[in-house]
């Protein structure tokens, strides 16, 4: 690594640099690598009916002999049973649809806030953030009251005369979509807003001066420049939505097969911690890939800039 300092950095400076670099690495090691290592260790253990419910990976069998037992059964089962793949695919599909819906809803909202008069922006942003002051769980429960057969939505539509019979929305995948989009929409709007307010308005003026119509200017100037915001917002929605457990559990029906639910079943109903750990690691792997892609993309976006 090329040092930005002189050839011989003074000791105090070197110490402060070490501290600056060391703290984030320590943080990563303590709160990311260590837990992942523990989960990895459990995933390679053999399940037993004891406390804890998995066998130790290693033990000293005799003087100076360490015996290590790695059990790859859990991973093999993940591979051989199609139910896990089905739940992965369904989770990915739900997360993808929800991310797109959040983007379609969130972009116009973020754009409207970013282009609103200065004095309106803060109150509008507050309206986006305000629901966070109520517990997430309570807000999801509230949707049960809205969506159920005898709930607000059905009664309202019946009263309007739009429908003759109550719609079955609660305990279906539709309810899961509604719950996830509602819960994660702010995570799409906030990065987009931050991105859109930083755009240079003179670029749009220049486009107009050169005879570009507003829609075309939006497509050619604003949209490409807000790419980083779109990517960041989409990742913030997509990643937690894949592993979401609470919303499908409360609003979803039995046909809502999601990986969070599978994990719960392995851990609680089947008492198989190693398999649950293996499932969690594979999920982590699946989520790291889009994250790395995002990093690349953002780097590309930075390099594209003139």
């Amino acid at each position, binding site marked *: 690594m090329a040092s930005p300092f002189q050839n011989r950095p003074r000791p105090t400076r070197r110490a402060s640099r070490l501290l600056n670099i060391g703290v984030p690495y320590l943080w990563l090691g303590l709160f990311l690598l260590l837990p992942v290592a523990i989960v990895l260790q459990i995933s390679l253990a053999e399940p037993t*009916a004891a*406390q804890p*419910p998995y066998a130790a990976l290693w033990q000293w069998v005799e003087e100076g002999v360490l015996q290590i037992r790695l059990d790859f059964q859990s991973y093999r089962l993940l591979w051989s049973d199609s*139910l896990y793949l*089905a739940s992965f695919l369904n989770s990915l599909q739900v997360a993808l649809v929800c991310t797109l819906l959040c983007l379609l809803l969130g972009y116009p909202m973020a754009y409207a806030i970013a282009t609103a008069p200065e004095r309106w922006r803060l109150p509008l942003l507050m309206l986006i953030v305000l629901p966070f002051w109520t517990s997430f769980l309570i807000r999801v429960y509230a949707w049960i009251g809205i969506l159920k057969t005898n709930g607000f939505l059905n009664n309202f539509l019946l009263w309007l005369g739009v429908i003759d019979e109550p719609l079955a929305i609660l*305990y279906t995948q539709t309810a899961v979509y509604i719950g996830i989009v509602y819960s994660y929409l702010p995570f799409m709007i906030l990065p987009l807003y931050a991105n859109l307010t930083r755009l240079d308005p003179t670029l749009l003026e220049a486009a107009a001066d050169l005879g570009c119509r507003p829609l075309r200017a939006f497509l050619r100037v604003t949209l490409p420049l807000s790419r980083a915001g779109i990517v960041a917002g989409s990742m913030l929605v997509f990643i937690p939505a894949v592993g979401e457990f609470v919303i499908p559990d409360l609003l979803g029906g*039995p046909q809502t097969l999601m990986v969070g639910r599978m994990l719960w079943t392995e851990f*609680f109903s089947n008492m198989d911690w190693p398999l649950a750990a293996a499932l969690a690691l594979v999920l982590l792997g699946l989520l790291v890939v889009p994250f790395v892609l995002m990093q690349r993309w953002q780097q590309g976006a930075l390099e594209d800039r003139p």
Partner: protein
Amino acid sequence: MRHLSVLLRPAALLLVAALAVPAIASAEERLHIYNWNDYFAEDTLADFQARTGIHPVLDVYDANEVLEAKLFAGRSGYDLVFPTMRPFAARHIAAGLYRPLDKDRLLGLANLDPQIMATLASGDPGNAHVVPYMWGTTGLGINVEKVQAALGEDAPLDTWGLIFDPENAKRLAGCGISLLDDPAEVIPAALAYLGRDPNSLAKADLAAAQALIEAIYPHIRYIHSSQYISDLANGDLCVAHGYSGDVLQAATRAEEAGGRVAIDYLIPREGAVLWTDVMAIPADAPNPEAAHAFIAYLLEPEVIAAVSDYVYYANPNLAATPHLDEALRDDPGIYPPPAVRARLFVPAERSSRELRDLNRLWTRLKSGH
């Protein structure tokens, strides 16, 4: 200066009091209880504290699995837990998770129903680790008026056929059927309806049960283990596969809400699951003495009768029966007559492999994969 000290003195006193209170509280003896939600009478804990000075701290769960995961992880910090005997407490005992009881301190054990103690002994040799708390059955919660409107006045109600006969299920789908989200409840019920051994693990039997459930599946409104309580009460369901006490709670709620909806609990004539919830002290409990004191308290006939009156479940304490509310004692859904009791069955023990296969079958059924 004077008026300042007048203001300051109460403030200083308050401060001293505030500092002193936690000190007193921490010196107080505590008992950490982990129980099902709504499973004590309203004054059970307060009366215990008034009598013994031990401060009970209650946490609640709504699934045996949640309790089990905490026990297997170890150091749960609880002194007393209330698992269902089969299959849960039985495998906890086998794994050595519970401390043997000091029976010299539990003289009330003599009042417990010997028949129930005998069934528990098959999973807890010598009844060394657990004391039965409440027992009940898993049957059908029925909105009689709606079911008769759909099936006719003289349709038999005390049968699993309400759910498992595809013709009935189709006609009842409009007013709503729910199933418990538990393969260990639904599959034995389906096997009982088919006249087979409810605990069978034979491939042919499981396949028959699966085919039966698949046939009625389109007519099921939802599969959930507690939602039916409120839905039965407000008329959103007409047949619910549910726990006896939960259905009776729904019936009471419906009555309190004006009596427009009348709910009955019925034990199907083909037989039903009999379950027992037990009290046990985790091996690593911080305060086993207080846990023993609490079990002894719950073994008192008046105390446990008051709990039964409140939660609508039968207790195993024979001396408590005279203290029960008459309506409860005479309710065949709570205290079934001997002829009905003879048809009840206890869920069998499952190995972890069998457990996985059952859960897998269930997940596939539910998700259609």
